[in-house]
């Protein structure tokens, strides 16, 4: 069983569209994250939730809206997609919010045309 699974793996869409990425972890972890990896492989944290509560909200356009219905799920909705949103988005989880090791999902390659 995959520990952190995210869907879809690939997402190709037009500028201006709205899309969602879903993430689920079966590790029983309290904390989940969204990271964005750009074309230069730089990994930047976007959001973090601990037990469904938002605890990290980096300087991200408000077109990006995370939602955590329960501590095992963290979804990312993106409105009005722009070319610059093209990247790989990784979901991750950790045991708690204290900064332990991260378990990453396999990533979602988003291409905005």
């Amino acid at each position: 069983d995959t520990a952190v699974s995210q869907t879809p793996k690939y997402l190709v869409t037009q500028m201006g569209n709205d899309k969602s990425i879903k993430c689920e972890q079966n590790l029983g972890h309290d904390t989940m994250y969204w990271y964005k990896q750009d074309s230069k492989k730089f990994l930047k944290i976007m959001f973090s939730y601990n037990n469904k509560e938002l605890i990290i909200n980096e300087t991200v356009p408000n077109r990006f809206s995370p939602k955590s219905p329960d501590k095992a799920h963290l979804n990312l909705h993106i409105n009005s997609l722009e070319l610059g949103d093209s990247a790989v988005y990784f979901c991750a989880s950790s045991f708690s919010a204290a900064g332990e090791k991260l378990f990453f999902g396999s990533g979602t390659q988003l291409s905005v045309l």
Partner: protein
Amino acid sequence: GQQVMQIPQYQHVQEGEDFTTYCNSSTTLSNIQWYKQRPGGHPVFLIQLVKSGEVKKQKRLTFQFGEAKKNSSLHITATQTTDVGTYFCAGKGRSGNTGKLIFGQGTTLQVKP
């Protein structure tokens, strides 16, 4: 804000040669973690260092945490083609307990057989 710099950005070595990547933080860290990302894959946790001056080994990999807890290094002895990938350090600042890890830019290692 906290910054984590990693050098070099790229390294090409002949199989059997050694490899080192260096990580420097602008602030003192409470811990530092290392991750490996294979081409097309997701970051996978390798190790965490917590103590000042700590040295840990995993087979051919040696990890060090500086005395001032502001820098770290990963050394691979006698590289193999299976070592190919991007190595990231990620540091957690000493203030706060939100688990916010700041990633270095990564060092991409190519190993020529």
